[in-house]
């Protein structure tokens, strides 16, 4: 028997330098391996790209609609019709009382004479209205709430205005705005739902790609586990494969959205011009492209983590 050699034995495991080195190596090798199989890689990227491009396109359209409709929305304003027998002085008193509310920005009084004159001018019924002995229109207050007052606050304000003595009627037409908000909300949810379904599809496709990649390298994995690799070491290259597939898919998806945007922008811009809008159809932008790539990368990483963890656990040397 020979004497044991001094200093033999394994070195301290996984120094940070070595860990970083292995990550760099796994990242570059995975990318090179993917690029060496352009058809298979391209198809994976394409499938992921389509899965991301569809909801992203819908989101771009929705954001454009929201921007256009935002321009169309007039600021909220109440028309407060005073009781018919209210004098001008009393109307001014009511104006002051309403103006003192914390949720009101300003109030304008339209005296009943001025209201009738404007109505006559707008309708061209000057002669006819001259023949009416009494002015049928009441004094009216136009109440502009503070911009910060949202829908519930507006309802409270309407109730408060109605409760003021001398006020006959409060007119505030919010129905069309509520309808529009409802349509946009439903649109957002639809996009989210489609997006989630498509992302689930992308995750399943990526996970399957990783499973196939692991299966193709089964012998190699068995050997490296036999010579001491743990699951984390064996899993690392596949995590990068997932990451690159997701990144590539995200990039391809962004390109698809870009092409779709170019195809759509000209007629949409013409339509906007017809509505005298200064808006222009806007695409993803740089941040949108980066978001799609990062989302793709995150999905790829998630899929790879799940697929590799479950499969490598079962893949033990025999």
């Amino acid at each position, binding site marked *: *028997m*020979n*004497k*044991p*050699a*001094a200093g*033999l*034995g*394994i*070195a*301290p*495991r*996984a*120094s940070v*330098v*070595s*860990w970083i*080195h*292995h990550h760099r*190596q796994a990242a570059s090798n995975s990318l090179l391996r993917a690029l060496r199989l352009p058809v298979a890689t391209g198809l994976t990227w394409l499938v992921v790209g389509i899965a991301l491009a569809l909801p992203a396109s819908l989101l771009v359209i929705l954001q454009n609609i929201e921007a256009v409709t935002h321009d169309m929305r007039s600021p909220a304003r109440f028309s407060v019709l005073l009781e018919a027998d209210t004098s001008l002085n009393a109307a001014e008193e009511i104006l002051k009382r309403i103006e003192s509310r914390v949720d009101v920005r300003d109030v304008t009084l339209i005296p009943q004479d001025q209201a009738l004159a404007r109505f006559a001018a707008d309708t061209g019924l000057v002669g006819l209205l001259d023949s009416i002995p009494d002015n049928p229109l009441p004094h009216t207050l136009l109440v502009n709430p503070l911009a910060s007052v949202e829908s519930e606050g507006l309802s409270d304000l309407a109730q408060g205005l109605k409760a003021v003595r001398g006020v006959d009627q409060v007119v505030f037409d919010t129905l069309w705005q509520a309808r529009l908000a409802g349509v946009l909300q439903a649109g957002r949810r639809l996009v989210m739902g489609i997006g989630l379904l498509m992302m689930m599809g992308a995750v399943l496709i990526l996970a399957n790609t990783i499973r196939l990649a692991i299966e193709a390298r089964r*012998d*190699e994995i068995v*050997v*490296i*586990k*036999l*010579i*001491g*690799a*743990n*699951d*984390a*070491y064996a899993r690392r290259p596949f995590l990068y494969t997932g990451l690159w597939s997701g990144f590539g898919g995200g990039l391809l998806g962004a390109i698809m959205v870009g092409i779709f945007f170019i195809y759509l922008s000209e007629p949409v811009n013409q339509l906007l011009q017809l509505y005298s809008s200064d808006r222009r159809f806007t695409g993803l932008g740089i941040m949108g492209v980066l978001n799609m790539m990062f989302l793709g990368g995150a999905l790829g990483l998630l899929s790879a983590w799940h697929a590799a963890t479950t499969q490598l656990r079962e893949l*033990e*040397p*025999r």
Partner: protein
Amino acid sequence: MIEFNRVSKRYVDHDALRDVSLTIGTGEMVFLTGHSGAGKTTFLRLLMLLERASMGSLRVDGRDTARIKGRNIGRYRGEFGIVFQDHQLLYDRSVLENVALPLEIAGFRPRDIQRRTRAALDKVGLLGREKANPAVLSGGEQQRLGIARAVVARPRFLIADEPTGNLDPQLSAEIMGLFEAFNRVGVTVIVASHDLALISRLRHRIVTLKAGRLVAGAGQ
């Protein structure tokens, strides 16, 4: 030190090892021999924790291997260098990358990996072939490459399962010479081989298994 204490391994249809008790000292070189099916491979598989004993205990340097579980198995296996009859090389990596693998797994620094890998290749006579693909090497060279990979991380135990099975007598002697060289620097070497003519020429303990039972070589 490796201690098999009344170890048995039972499969569904047969007993691969029966009541084997054996101690292999630190720095010792032992040949494990017997006919096909005698239990040599099962013996090594138990040692590498590829299988678990059905009965008895197996201790390595005082550690009960039955208690080594999960992520510690990889670390435990890292203490062994293993040489296969069919080499088990990775043919999508170069000679250098194959040898470097245990060092990467063990967490050596890149510059140490380069240095140690070249040193290991030098020891087995493959320095200068670092960039070659293992597939272009001859059978003997592939086996030497397998040995370089097994010893590069300076394991405490070197295990070889029929390492000369596919080699001619001259190459076989060369490979055995390499094992002896590593044993001389303190590595515990266990070689499973049925080539009695070859191993009997070397002056090391021969442990003989027959139908799963230890029939010779139990004492040190």
